[in-house]
C-alpha cells in the first residue's frame, strides 16, 4: 500500500486526515480512489483530466512529470506539491 499525503489545503475534504494508505499502480488510481474517499478531491488538483500544471507529484522524492500515468510502488510515499521553476 502506498502512503498518500493529503495536501493540508485539501484536508477540509478528508476531515483532517493527513494521509491514507492506498493500493494503486499509478497516480490515476490514487486520484480516483481519493476522489471516491473524499469527493471533490480530483476537481481540486486536476485540470483537463491530468494533474494541474501548477502542481507536481512527488513519488519517493522523485518529482515526476508523468502526471496520472506515473507508476507507484507498493510502499511508495506520494505527495502533491507546487510545481516550481529555478533561475
Amino acid at each position, binding site marked *: 500500500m502506498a502512503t498518500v499525503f493529503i495536501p493540508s489545503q485539501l484536508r477540509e475534504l478528508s476531515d483532517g486526515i493527513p494521509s491514507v494508505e492506498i493500493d494503486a499502480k499509478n497516480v490515476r488510481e490514487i486520484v480516483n480512489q481519493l476522489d471516491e474517499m473524499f469527493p471533490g478531491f480530483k476537481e481540486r488538483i486536476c485540470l483537463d483530466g491530468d494533474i494541474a500544471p501548477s502542481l507536481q507529484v512527488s513519488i519517493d522524492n522523485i518529482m515526476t512529470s508523468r502526471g496520472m500515468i506515473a507508476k507507484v510502488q507498493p510502499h511508495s510515499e506520494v505527495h502533491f506539491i*507546487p510545481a516550481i521553476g529555478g533561475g
Partner: protein
Amino acid sequence: MTTTQYRVIGSRPVRHDGADKVTGKAIYTADMKLPGMLSGFVLRSPHAHAKILSIDTSEAEAMPGVHAVVTGADFPNVEDKIADLGEGSVNLAYLSTNCMAQKKVLYRGHAVAAVAATDVHIAEEAAAKIKVEYEVLDSVTWVLDAMQDDAPLLHENLLTDSLGKKAETPSNIPVHMHFEKGDVAAGFAEADVIIEREFKTATVHQGYIEPHAVVADYNEDGRLRIWTATQGSFTCRQQTAEVLQIPLGNVLVTPCEIGGGFGGKITVYLEPTAALLSKKSGRPVRITMTRADVFEASGPTPGSYMRIKLGAKNDGTIVAGEAWLAYDAGAYPGGMIGPGCMCVFSCYDIEHAVVDGYDVCLNKPKTSAYRAPGATQVAFAVEQLVDELAEKLDMCALEIREKNAVKEGARRVDGPVYPPIGLEQCLDALKQSEHWNTPLEGPHRGRGIAAGFWFGCGLKSSAACTVNSDGTINLLEGSTDIGGSRTSIAMQLAEVLGLEAEDINPQVGDTDTAGYTDVTGGSRVTFATGMAAYEAGRDLQQQMKTLAAELWDCSAEEITVNEDGSFSGNGNQLGFKELASQLFAAGEHLVGRATVSPECPTNGFGAHIADVEVDPETGKVTILRYTTIQDAGKAIHPSYVEGQLQGGTVQGIGWALNEEYFFNDDDTMANADFLDYRVPTMLDVPMIETIIVETGNPDHPYGVRGVGETPIVPPPAALANAIYNATNTRMTELPMSPPKLWKAMQSDPSAD
C-alpha cells in the same frame, strides 16, 4: 564524500568558448546583421496603471523609413490557457498581454506599440508620434497595500485560488498556499524560547549585463526564424508559437551567446513583437532593450513581506516554526511564493511547522525567477531568527545550526523527505575552515553565518555526439551556455570515452538541430545535460563494441570497455581514437545519442561566513572577508563551480546591501539605470573565498549536484547577522543600505 579518482573530471581545462569570448568574436544577438534588417523600438506606458482608451498610429506609419507598426490589435486573441513550459507553467493570455498590452497597462514600461524602421532613431521618433489616450487609474506597489480590500484591482476577474478552491470575490491575490506538519500549537507550547519578527525585502533585478535582444525573420512560407538571448531555445519557441498562434514546427529559435540570465531570460518579452513587425514589413527586425527597458519591463524578483516565528527548547532544539509570507507577483499572477513557502524551513529539521503564502499582483513588472527564486527572502528572515535563538540560549550560531540541520530522512514542511544531502558536511567544512578559526578583532566589526538551500532539478536534456575520422567528437546539445556548461558537459563525455576535454567540440544547437532540452535554469545543466552526454557516450561505446567484434572476429559480448575508455577483445586492444579511426576507415560512421529526463531534485546546500566592518558615522558596510561553502556533489570543473559560488554570492551581497527599485509617488521606477540602481562592483567586495564540499549525488553517474542557485541564498542573512554582531542592531529590511542602517543604529538604544 566522493573519493573516485577521474582523469578529466575535477581538472580545469580552458573553456571551449573562451577565445571567442575574450576576443570579442562570440556572436550575441545585438551583433546580428541580416540583409535588409530593420530596427524595432517599443513604445512603453508612462503610467503604472491605466486603461488604454485609444491608439492612433497613423502619423507614425506615414513617416519616411517606417515599415511597420504593431499594437495589441495585431496580436491574436489568446485564450486563458495554462501551458506547461517544462520548468513551470504560464497562463498564455497573461503572457501575451505582458508582451503587448491590450486594454490596460499594468506597470510603467508595459509595451503598448512597436515600430520597425530603417534605423532605431527613426523608429523611436515614429513611436513618439503614436497617440495613446489613457485613463490613469490608482496604482499600488507595496505588497500589503495590494492585499487590502480597497486596493486598486489589476485584474477584475482574478479570484484567489486555494489549491483548486476559488474565492468568491476578486482581489489582487491569485494564490494562497498553506503547508503544515505536526501540531504547531503543541510545538510552540513545548518551546522555552519563542521569537517572532517581521521582515521586508525590496524588489531587485537580476542585473544581467546583456539586455534582452531579438532578431526575427518571418518568411512568406509561414516559417519564423528567431535569434535571441534566451535561457531556453525550446521554451522560447513554445511561448512564441503559442502567443502568435502558429504551429510550433514553423518556429526555429537559435540561441545566441548570452550575457547572463539568472532566471530572467526564460519568459519571452520581445520575440512575438519582433515576429509581427517582421511579418508586417517583410523584413528581418531586430529589437534591443535599453537598460531602462530591462528594469521597467522585464521580470525582477519579488519584493516581500514576511512574518516568521520560531520556538526552541533550552537545549537548542528548534521545535516549532510559523511563517506568513506575501510575495510580489508583479502585474500578472505566477510569482515565486511556492518555492518561498517550500524553502522557508528547508535547512532545519523542525517537527511542527505551518506556512501560509500569498502571491500578490501589483503595479510592477511581472516577476521572474532569479537564482533560487523565493529562497533568498525567507533565508534572510529565518537565518536571523536562528541566530537570535542561539543568542537567547547562550549557544554559538554554528552550534544551533549543527544541532538542527536537516539530514537524510528529514521531512520538509511541504511533505517529501530528503535523500542523502550535504548540509551537515557544509557546516563541518565551515567549522574546520581557516576563516572560522581566525578571530575577528577590532571595533564595529562582526562576523555572521547563514545556511541556504535550493532544490535543483533534472528535467529533459538531449545530446548527440558525432565521431570524426580522427576519433575526436562533435558534441551537439541544446543547453544555452551561461556559466561554462559547454565545457562541463564535454568533460563528462570525455571522461566516459577516455578522451581529453580538448578532443570534444561542443556546440549548442538550435531548435531544429538539437534534441529537446529544457531551460538552462534550476541548476540543472551540468547535472542533466551532462548526464545526457554521459549516456550518449555509453550509446557510442555499445555501437563500437558491436562493430569492433566484426573487426576482431569475435562476439560483442567478448569486447570489454576498459576504465580508460579503451576497447579489448580477442587479443586486441585499442584506445577510443584508434578504434574510431579504424572503424571510420572501414566505412562506419558513428553517432551516439541520448535523451534523459531525471526527475530527482539535486538538493544543493551551502553555508556562508561574512566578516564586516560598519562605519558608525555613515552606516556603510565594508565586507572584510567572505567565504562561501557549498556541496557540489562532485565538481566537474572546479573553476566553474567556484565561479558560480562567487557570482551568486556577489549578487546576494548586492541584494543585501544596495539594490532596490525606488518608486516615485506615481509608482513609476525612479532608478532605472545602473548609476542609480547600484549592483556591486569589484571595488565593493573582497575576493570571495570558496570551499567546495563533495558529498556525491547518488542520482548522477559522477555525483553532480546543481550549484548555480544556492550561493545567492545566504548572503543577506549572513551579512545581517554580521552587522548585528558589529553594531547590536538587528536589520529586518533589505537592502541594508547605509541610510537605512544608519537610521536603525540611531533608533536602537542598544546599538554600538
